[in-house]
């Protein structure tokens, strides 16, 4: 006990609140980041259909979504800036030691962030006066740099999980191999896993909004188009995400065996390891889980005799502190991902047999919660990857306690962050709801003139209208 206290005093008492703060701010930002990465593609898809097929409904959706994008990009830009500051304000130990290594992908990300923000300025505010296809092309760099920017940031996280590409002498970095830092071993599964997650969050998220509308009885072309533009890309990508995730889990069994042991409840290295679905691990007992014999060994090596490394291979101090959280989050992520896969298959089956959407209420209820399910799954994934790496910030090299600030008062900044982000989050949701109400009013106003003159298309040169 006194040893623990001593260690805590020597290390830093700030690492727990600092982690809580990082989790809050990153957990908030990552949702906006998902929409930042993937929403532009969905908006461009809608605008493409609008331009190509003269589909006015798709065009109206594209315009409205880009207004939503405007709000989310603004809030995402500032919540991302907070994270840049926090890298130094919360984790000066990490930056002092490894800033020159993990900064390289961040610098690249800065480049893509520039392109994203510049073209977002053009695209979002160019609706009225840029000609149709020129406007569409101005959005393409946002989508491309969103993906490349995400790859850069994920490369930092991958580097923290499987560090390499540098030499350290007497506690100082003496050389850096830039390519190895940009593409750490785990990047090959982390990058596609997160980018696909972003597309699922944005796609199922957009679809949810219109599923709610359809459930409320707005069974019109506008709502079905909105639902399809989000749901179809996300549902197509879901099976790929599950394949990538499966590969990722198997690779983690090699790259970070202790993290994998926590994900799957493997206390001791063994063969014929069972798979636990759910269950809470406390003091060596697993309460309430469903045990599938040999399954974990099968998943790792396709044979019941596959040996799986347990967390007994490292001393207790080097194990993640809250194993049950990692396991349950992992199960939740896999479970929700599988549920979304089934919803997509359901829609595909009905489409194949009957060329229409499924009619049962259950399908639309699932569609309505799909966005939330994707967000929860994505957040759970981050809990697994971050919590599972503990006590390390850079796996095997630096502990989170060593990285944390030596300043007091993180609890104070944490309190402000919780209150501030709560308000900003509530205001963001409030504004989106307000936009939705305003649009519904607009549509009602439009309704009484079904045979009136066709409304001016968004992208026709509107100089006559202007002057």
């Amino acid at each position, binding site marked *: 006990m006194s040893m623990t206290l001593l260690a805590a005093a020597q290390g830093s008492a700030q690492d727990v609140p600092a982690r809580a703060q990082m989790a809050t701010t990153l957990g908030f930002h990552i949702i906006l980041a998902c929409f930042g990465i993937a929403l532009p593609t969905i908006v461009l898809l809608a605008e493409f259909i609008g331009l190509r097929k003269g589909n006015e409904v798709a065009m109206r959706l594209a*315009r409205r979504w*880009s*207004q939503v994008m*405007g*709000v989310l990009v603004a*809030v995402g*830009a*500032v*919540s*991302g*800036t*907070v994270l*840049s*500051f926090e*890298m*130094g*304000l919360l984790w*000066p*130990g990490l*930056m*002092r030691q*490894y*800033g*020159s*290594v993990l*900064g*390289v992908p961040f*610098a*690249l990300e*800065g*480049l893509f*962030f*520039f*392109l994203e*923000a*510049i*073209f*977002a*300025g*053009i695209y*979002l*505010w*160019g*609706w009225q*006066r*840029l000609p149709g296809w020129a406007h569409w092309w101005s959005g393409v*760099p946002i989508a491309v740099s969103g993906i490349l920017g995400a790859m850069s940031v994920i490369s930092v996280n991958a580097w923290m999980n499987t560090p390499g590409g540098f030499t350290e002498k007497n506690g100082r*970095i*003496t*050389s*850096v191999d*830039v390519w190895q830092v940009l593409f750490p071993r785990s990047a090959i599964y982390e990058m596609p896993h997160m980018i696909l997650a972003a597309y699922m969050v944005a796609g199922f998220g957009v679809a949810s909004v219109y599923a709610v509308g359809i459930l409320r009885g707005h069974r019109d072309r506008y709502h079905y188009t909105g639902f399809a533009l989000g749901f179809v890309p996300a549902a197509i990508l879901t099976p790929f995400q599950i394949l990538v995730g499966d590969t990722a889990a198997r690779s983690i069994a090699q790259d970070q065996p202790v993290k994998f042991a926590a994900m799957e409840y493997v206390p001791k290295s063994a063969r014929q390891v069972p798979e636990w679905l759910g269950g809470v691990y406390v003091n060596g007992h697993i309460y309430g889980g469903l045990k599938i014999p040999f399954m974990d060994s099968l998943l790792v090596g396709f044979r019941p005799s596959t040996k799986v490394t347990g967390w007994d291979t490292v001393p207790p101090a080097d194990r993640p502190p809250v194993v049950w959280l990692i396991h349950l989050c992992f199960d939740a992520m896999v479970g929700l991902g599988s549920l979304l896969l089934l919803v997509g298959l359901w829609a595909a089956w009905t489409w194949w047999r009957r060329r229409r959407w499924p009619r049962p209420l259950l399908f639309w209820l699932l569609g309505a919660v799909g966005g939330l399910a994707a967000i929860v799954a994505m957040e759970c994934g981050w809990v697994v990857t971050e919590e599972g790496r503990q006590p390390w910030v850079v796996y095997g090299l630096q502990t989170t306690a060593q990285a944390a*600030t*030596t300043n007091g008062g993180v609890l104070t900044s944490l309190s*402000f962050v919780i209150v501030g982000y709560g308000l*900003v989050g509530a205001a963001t949701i409030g*504004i989106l709801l*307000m*936009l939705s109400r305003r649009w519904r009013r607009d549509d009602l106003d439009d309704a009484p003139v079904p045979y009136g003159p066709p409304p001016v298309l*968004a992208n026709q040169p509107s100089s006559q209208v202007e002057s």
Partner: protein
Amino acid sequence: MADAVGAILVASVTLYAVLGGADFGGGLWDLLAGTTARGRAPRDLIDASITPIWEANHVWLVFDLVIFWTAFPRAFASVMTALALPLWLAVGGIVLRGAGFAFRKEITRLSQQRAAGAVFAFSSLLTPFFMGTVVGAIAAGAVPADARHASLAAWTSPTALLSGFVFAAACGFLAAVYLTVEAGRRHDQTMGAYFTRRAQAAAVVTGALSLAALFEVHGSDPAFFSRLTGRALPLVVLAGVCGLAVLAMLTAGRAKGIRSVAALAVAAVIWGWGVAQYPVLLPRTGMTLTSAGATQATFVALVVVAIAAVILVVPSFALLYTLQGRRLLGGGEQLAPPAAGRIS
């Protein structure tokens, strides 16, 4: 190589100051625009000129931070530890400014618009002030080499506080000058005159504060003062000359090139600071660009990124500003028109 990266850092700080700084300055004038009815026209103009570009300008800040920590990690960790409080306050300001500005656009109810506008305007004033105290504290040598604890004294010294005021005033100066040009483009003579008066006042205040800061440094840090008036003298003189030139151009009503001259005045101050301090990164600690620095490979990577930025980002910015200058970017009938227009 460390020198090249140092120059890149100062250059991107300069770009943040003359581009992002003006957006904060816009918030300052929004704050001072008076009651709802009276402030309607200036708020409208400020909103229209900031809207499509502030996020892109804001990215310079993120870029600055990343270059700082990548190239000079030890100095970065010390600054972030010793000056944690003003940095947290600046972060808070950044969040509230961005959120307040973005929300004000979408809200239609007047009372909520006012609240969001007030949040935007106040944080636009506070953020550059706290950033200024951080720069002032670094220049004054108040950040130790391996800082382990935050220090209140570091950023509340007269030098640091004066620096904070200079930053806030300089943002207001840049914004007012830019807004005279924006008003000219819209053939709005009332607003042209309105912001000309404010630009003149801001120029005088900024100049006076800068002189006061120089005078203060003369007393508190004679060594730094002698370098400022030694090898950095041409830049200090350039800053003064540009400031006076802007005043003259404002009085003469000459819009052509006035923004560049104003930006040059601010840039000269920043480069004057950089030159006076070179090659020391954290004064009074002996931490220099090389000793705080990263490895050669990291420096090379940063130079490559900077070159890529010049190739990719500069033309993109040129496109953005050109479209904005030709007024091709703006709210459509379905995109909400600038909300500030309806604050009345």
